[in-house]
């Protein structure tokens, strides 16, 4: 069975690094894997989505509507934007950060209230204020790895395998803090 993971967020939040870690762990585990990313214009502070699919043999590189097993959202408006990609029994892991899009800042649109509460009515939701947790760890940049740690519980790999791939993937100087961040999300 192919497993479908999506990582969504705002350009600059580190979706590409997270997907590299995910891609690496699936490969190490001997799966066939395909990843699809967004580069270029779409990244500049815009809505960003990355697909990761792994299984015995993967054909298409994208996850389509209604098919995501795990949706990892680094920002809550983006969670709402892509929630319809989730399977019925899919899991949403959401960072409760609010980043206002330019359409909201200029007053052309308004940021929806009670997003997470609304999503909890329809989906299995795991939420975390990862930015606050990351600041407690002393580096706000690793919030994405905290969220990944939370999502990792809903995938097919051991804690050790995750720590190993993090060590292999992130810049050497940041290995320790990223491992700590992962465990924060994984173990709570």
């Amino acid at each position: 069975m192919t497993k479908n993971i999506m990582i969504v967020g705002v350009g600059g939040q580190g979706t590409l690094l997270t997907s590299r870690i995910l891609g690496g762990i699936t490969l190490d585990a001997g799966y066939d894997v395909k990843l699809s990313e967004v580069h270029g214009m779409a990244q500049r502070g815009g809505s960003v989505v990355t697909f990761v699919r792994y299984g015995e043999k993967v054909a298409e590189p994208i996850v389509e509507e209604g098919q995501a097993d795990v949706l990892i959202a680094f920002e809550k408006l983006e969670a709402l934007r892509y929630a319809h990609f989730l399977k019925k029994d899919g899991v949403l892991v959401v960072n409760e950060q609010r980043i206002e899009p330019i359409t909201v800042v200029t007053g052309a649109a308004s940021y929806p209230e009670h997003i997470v509460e609304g999503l909890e009515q329809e989906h299995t939701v795991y939420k975390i204020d990862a930015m606050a947790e990351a600041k407690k760890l002393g580096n706000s940049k690793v919030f994405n790895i905290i969220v990944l740690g939370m999502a990792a519980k809903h995938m097919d790999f051991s804690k050790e395998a995750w720590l190993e791939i993090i060590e292999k993937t992130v810049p050497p100087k940041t290995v320790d803090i990223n491992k700590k961040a992962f465990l924060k999300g994984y173990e709570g």
Partner: protein
Amino acid sequence: MLGNEAIARGAYEAGVKVSAAYPGTPSTEISENIVKYDEIYAEWSPNEKVATEVAIGASISGVRAMASMKHVGVNVASDPLYTISYGGVNGGLVLVAADDPGLYSSQNEQDTRCVARAAMVPVLEPSDSQEAKDFVKFAYEISEKYDTPVIVRTTTRLAHSQGTVTLKERVEPKDQPYERNPAKFVMMPANAIGRHVYVEQRMKVMAEDSGSFAINRAEYQDTSIGFITSGIPYQYVKEACPNASVLKLGMVHPLPRKLIEEFASKVEKLYIFEELEPVIEEQVKSWGIEAVGKEIFTVQGEYSANMLREKVLNEKVQVKDPAKVPARPPILCPGCPHRSVYSVLNKLKIHAAGDIGCYTLGAVPPLNVIDTTVCMGASISTLHGMEKAKGKAYIKNWVAVIGDSTFLHTGVNSLMNMVYNQGTGTVIILDNSTTGMTGHQDHAATGKTLKGETVPAINIYELCRAMGIKHVTEVDAFDTEKLERIVREETARDEVSVIITKAPCVLLKGNVFPYKCRPVTEQCKKCGACLRPGCPALTKNADGTIAIDDTMCNGCGLCEQLCKFNAIERAEA
């Protein structure tokens, strides 16, 4: 491996010795990966035409060469491409063209296969990263065998998807000996007449031979449904209809007619599943073969497996409607120097003829400065055309805006034209010392090559002066007061003028930001002046006062300059 990384690996394994390119999403990472191989000379050229000609020169001299570009880059390169199709090659010559169905990062959705048909150049189309690597190698084989340049066509979805790839060793082909051969490589009429005959014959032979190419493959299973497909759409067919028969075309031009006729005769219902233009479909139908294609599949955007489930299998795909949420379009980064320039133009109610780069985002609210964007380099010539149509008074509240990399790409020619034909417009060169939107590639004015060598940088100021322009002014992009004065002066002038606004891209490596901007809340009059340029680090508190996200702020100080009440301070971070 990313599709683009696999293409670079293919070039390496095929023994390519020269690679030239101009950055363009989604093709940029090809060069960024090729540069890792010391065996390949790799360069950023100022534009795709130059890059293609560099590759042509290398091929004529007898080595394998590659030029890579995005689809619209093929337009710039089409002049040499159409003619080298006649001349053919000495060492293998491959042009990688990356199409962008779905318009993730482009100004149009053109299909390179249409160009290739007109230029009579064969096209290969891989479906995943492994094929991307393998097809590049095969492209060099057929380039040399059939004496033709070959296009490898990718799409955004292939270029920016990762899949597993098996690596092989590099094969070092012997350089082809160079012998002078004007009949082949000097395309003047007498020679071109003969070469055109050759080209027509070459494409016929290739069409005939391609029936036995391994990359064109019939997969017979359930014959009640058959698909002719290629590239990424092949993967959607395998996903949605894993039991259907498929004719997978690795070469999409010229088409293997016999193979297609045979496949069509064996399946009951034939679909042609290709993104963008009905290139395969129109040819197949012209042979009297019944098939379904663009009657049910769109010519716009990307395809999907769900599309097949709905339109071919008549399955009702149960998906929820997406939630109605505010759009999150791309925006200029916090601290971007373009924002500062646009805030001045916006204040002066100046219209801008725009160009291609991050700064195209000046077209959208809240900046609303750019009125036109066509293609690379067009800003300057469009402004000139407006002046010639409506007179010089008409463009007093207009400027052209163009980035440093785009200016060197094709803006230079337009500026020469403005000087020559007595234009009076004002051109603003937004010099941020890099090719920003594609992810920070060097160019001729940065003083660094793709290989990282330090070289003399083209001086844009001196270049403009050398054209005979008397009024060329350099100004710090963040000095809004000075910039405003200069823009007023230069647009009032009845002569051509250039303003070079200087400040490096905030995302450029090595950039340090010693300042942060902070709100002084008790001074805030809630007027919103600081919000007008749309910096993403600024938001309103519930009471209407200003909040600044200090993780996003790069301390450029634009908001501080705009605040008349000292409600924002800029201090050392």
